[in-house]
C-alpha cells in the first residue's frame, strides 16, 4: 500500500511550509504538491437573521424561559415548606425529594436552555478566524529568559559554589524525613504480623450464634444446616468489629462419611459438625453462601469457591488457600466449644504469613 516511491524520504529533515523554523516532521510524508485549502464556505443566514418576526419570537422565547426559571425556583422554595418530613413516614421523604428536586431542576434547565437558545438564535452565527502562533516564546523572549537564569546563577554562585549547592540539596532531602517518619504512629506500636495470627478463639470458648450470642447445642445442629458463628466473648469485646473480622466462623453439619479430613485433623470435627473461618483467604470478604447440596462455600465478592468435604480447598475463583478450620468439640453439657484458636492466620494472605 505504500505507493509513495516517488516521494523524497522525509525523515528528520522535512520542513512544514507553514512554519518558518526548521521543525522535524519525523517520518511524516510531506506532499510535494498539496491541495489548496478552499477557504471557508459561504456563510448561511439563519431564519432569525432574515425574518424580524422570527427574531422577535426567539427573543420572546428566551425571556419566557428565564421567567419560567424564576417561577420554578419559587416553586422549589414552596415545595421545601409544603412537603415537610414526617417522622417514620418514608412517603413524605419521597415527596420532599421529588418536588424540591423537580423545582430546582426545572429552574436550572430553563436558565440553561434559555441561554443556549439565545446564543443560537440571536447572537452572531458567523464564525471568526484567529491566527495561532507557535507555543514557544519568541527567540528574543527565550534569550531573555536564559539570561535571567544565567544572571541568577552568576549572582548567587549556585553553580560555582558547589559546597553551598550540595549542602542545600542535602538539606532539602533531609527536611522531608521528619515529615515521613511522623506518620509511623498512624498505626499502634505492636507488630501487625503478631496481631494477625491470633483471634478470640481459645480452648473451651463457646461457639455462639451471630448476632445474638446464644450457645449452640451440638444436638440442635441438624444434618445439612449451617450457622453463622461468633465466639462467646466477642459481644463483650472492646474491639468488636476488629475481632469479628477475624473470628467469624461458619458451622455446618455434613454426613461424617462425606468429610475427607486430612491426617491429624480427624477429631477437629464433632459428629460431622465442622467449623471453618468465614473470612475469605483471597481479600477477606465473608464467605457467606453455603450450597447445601454440593457442600460448596461461595464468596459473593469474587466467587472463590471452597469444598467443605475436602477441608475447604479452593475449587474455583481467585483464592489460593483453603479456609482455616477451627477445631471444635463439645463441653460436658453438649454445647459446642473450640479446642483451640485457629492453627494458622485467617483472612487474606500477607508477606510474613508463613514465617
Amino acid at each position, binding site marked *: *500500500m*505504500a505507493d509513495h516511491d516517488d516521494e523524497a*524520504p522525509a525523515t528528520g529533515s522535512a520542513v512544514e511550509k*507553514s512554519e518558518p523554523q526548521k521543525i522535524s*516532521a519525523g*517520518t*511524516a*510524508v510531506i506532499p510535494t*504538491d498539496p491541495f489548496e*485549502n*478552499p*477557504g471557508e*464556505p459561504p456563510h448561511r443566514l439563519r431564519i432569525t437573521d432574515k425574518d424580524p418576526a422570527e427574531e422577535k419570537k426567539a427573543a420572546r422565547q428566551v425571556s419566557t424561559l428565564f421567567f419560567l426559571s424564576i417561577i420554578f425556583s419559587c416553586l422549589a422554595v414552596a415545595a421545601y415548606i409544603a*412537603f415537610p418530613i414526617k417522622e*417514620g413516614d418514608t412517603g413524605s*421523604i419521597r415527596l*420532599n*425529594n*421529588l418536588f*424540591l*428536586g*423537580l423545582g*430546582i*431542576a*426545572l*429552574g*436550572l*434547565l430553563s*436558565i*440553561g436552555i434559555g*441561554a*443556549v437558545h439565545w*446564543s*443560537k438564535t440571536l*447572537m452572531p452565527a458567523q*464564525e*471568526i*478566524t*484567529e*491566527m495561532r502562533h507557535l507555543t514557544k516564546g519568541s527567540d528574543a523572549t527565550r534569550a531573555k529568559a536564559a539570561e535571567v537564569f544565567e544572571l541568577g546563577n552568576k549572582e548567587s554562585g549556585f553553580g560555582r559554589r558547589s559546597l553551598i549547592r550540595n549542602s542545600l540539596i542535602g538539606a532539602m532531602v533531609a527536611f522531608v524525613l521528619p515529615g515521613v517518619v511522623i506518620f509511623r504512629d*498512624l*498505626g*499502634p506500636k505492636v507488630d*501487625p504480623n503478631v496481631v494477625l495470627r491470633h483471634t478470640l478463639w481459645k480452648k473451651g470458648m463457646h461457639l455462639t450464634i451471630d448476632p445474638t450470642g446464644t450457645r449452640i447445642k451440638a444436638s440442635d445442629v441438624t444434618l445439612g444446616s449451617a450457622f*453463622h458463628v461468633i465466639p462467646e466473648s466477642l459481644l463483650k469485646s472492646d474491639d468488636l468489629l*476488629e475481632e*469479628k473480622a477475624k473470628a467469624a466462623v461458619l458451622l455446618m453439619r455434613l454426613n461424617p462419611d462425606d468429610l475427607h479430613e486430612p491426617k491429624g485433623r480427624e477429631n477437629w470435627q464433632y459428629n460431622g459438625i465442622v467449623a471453618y473461618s468465614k473470612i475469605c483467604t483471597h*481479600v*477477606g*470478604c465473608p464467605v*457467606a453462601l453455603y450450597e447445601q447440596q454440593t457442600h460448596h462455600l461461595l464468596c459473593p*465478592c*469474587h*466467587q472463590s469457591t471452597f469444598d467443605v468435604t475436602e477441608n475447604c480447598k479452593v475449587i474455583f475463583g*481467585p483464592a*489460593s488457600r483453603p479456609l482455616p478450620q477451627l477445631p471444635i468439640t463439645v463441653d460436658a453439657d453438649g454445647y459446642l466449644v473450640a479446642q483451640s484458636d485457629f492453627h494458622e492466620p485467617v483472612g487474606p*494472605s*500477607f*508477606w510474613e504469613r*508463613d514465617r
Partner: protein
Amino acid sequence: MGAAANYIDERTSISGLVKEVGRKIFPDHWSFMLGEVALYSFVVILLSGTFLTFFFQPSMAEVTYQGSYVPLKGIDMSAAMQSTLNISFDIRGGLLFRQIHHWAALLFIAAIGLHMLRIYFTGAFRKPRELNWFIGFVLFILALAEGFTGYSLPDDLLSGNGLRIIDGMVKGIPVIGVWISYLLFGGEFPGTAIVSRLYSLHIMLLPALLIAMLGAHLLLLVINKHTQWAGPGKTNDNVVGVPVMPVFAAKAGGFFFIVFGVIVLIASLFTINPIWNYGPYDPSPVSAGTQPDWYIGFADGALRLAPPHWEVVWGGYTVSFNILVPIVVLVGLLGTVAFYPFIEGWITGDKREHHILDRPRNAPTRTAVGAALMTLYAALWGAASSDLMATHFKLSIDQVIHVMQFLTVIGPFIAFWITKRVCLGLQKKDREIALHGHESGRIVRLPGGEYIEVHTPLTEYERWTLVSFNEYEPLMVRPNERGVVTPLERIRASISGFFFEDRISPVTKAEIEASHHESHGAIEEGSGGH
C-alpha cells in the same frame, strides 16, 4: 458600569486580561462538550458536597440509631452512618443533595472517560498538548480516588466491604503490604480511624489537588488554543469558531445550567446508594450480587479473573500472584494510557505542532490500539458483574469467568485486528469518493451499450475534508552520526513498522487529474469541480 469597571481596573489592571481572552475563539463541535460536562459536574460536586459537610460526622464512634427511619431504630452503628441516615431522613433536601452529589460524581467520571476517548481517538494529545494529556490523566486518577473515598464515608455494609477488599489487596503487596494496611486503618481492619482519615482526603487534600490540576489543565487549554476538526478554511495556523464574549460564554454558561439541571432531575427521580437498605458495616454478612460503583468495576473485575492457586511461598515469604498480577495489569493499562502521547511522538519523530484533529480512520493503528485497550477495560469491567451475568442468563459462574478470562487475553487482539481493517476500509472508501465522487444511484446506458453509474463530483469543500490528513512512513533504521545503529533505534523502527506499514495515502492532486482522464467519456453530473 463605566465607573465600576474603572474602579476595578485601577486596582487590578484586569482590562488586559479581558482584552486578551474576551474575544478568544473557541471552535464549536458536540464532541468538545464532553470535557465541559466533566468540568460542570465537578462544580456541582463541590456545591452539593459542601452542603453535605455541614451535616456529616466523619466519626466511627459507636452510637445507637434513634432517627426517623424506623427499620434501623435501636441498631448500633457508627456516627458516620447515623449522620448519613439523618441527612437522608431528617433534613429537608438532604436526600436530594446526597443523591445530587453521588449522581454528579458518577457523571463526572463518565464524562472524563468519554472526554479522554475523544482526545485519544482524534489525536488531540499530540504536540503541544502531551503534557496536558498527562495532567488530564492525573485528574482522572484523582477523580477515581475522590469517588472511592466518598463511597467509603457512610460506613454502610457495602462501603465497608469495599474497604475490606482494599485491605486484602494491600496486604497482598510484598514486604510492606501489612504495614501499609496497618497504618492506613490505624491498626487492624476496620479500626475506628479510617472514615475520618478518608474524610480528610476526600474533602481537603484530593479536592485541592483536583482544583490545582484543573487550573493547570484549563490554563494550558487557553495557551495552546483549542484544536479543531479538518475542514475548509481551517488550517494548522488558525482557529475558527465563536468568540468567548458573548457567544461561547452564553453557550457554555447555559450548558452548565443544563448539566446541573439534568443531574438534579436524575437525583429527584432515581435513588442512588440506598444505604438504609444495606445497614451498618459488619464484617460477617454480605449479600450476593454486591456491585461496586461502576468506575471501580475494572479493578474488581481484574481481581475476579485470577485463576485459583496463584500464590506461592518462597523462602518462607508469601507472594500472592492472585493479587499482584491484577495490580500489574491495571497499572500497565493505566500507564500505557498516561504515556501514550510520548510513545507515539517518539515513534513518529514528528516535532511539529498539531492543531487539526485526525479522523480516527486516518490513524488506523492508533485507533486500533485504542480499541484494544478499551476492550481490555471492558472485559475487566464486565468481569466485575460475572455473578450477575451468571444469575440473569442462567449460566454457570465458571463459564462466565472462563469467557471473561478469554476476552481479557484474546479480546484486545481481536478488537485491534477488526478496528484496523475497518479503518483501512473506510480510508479506501474515502479515497474512492475523493477520486470519483459520490455514487448517485443513477445508471446510464452509453451509446455503445455499456452501463455505468453516474457519480456526483465533490465540491472542493467536501474534498478538502477527505484529502487533508497526515500520513507517516515506517522508519528506516539509519546509522547515527557515529555510524552506529543503536538498539533503541531498532526498537523504534520495528514499532514504527507496526504502526505505519499498512496505510492508505491521501489522494494527491495528480491522482485526481489522472482519474479525470481515465473517466474521459464517462458522464459526470455537474461541472466536475475544476
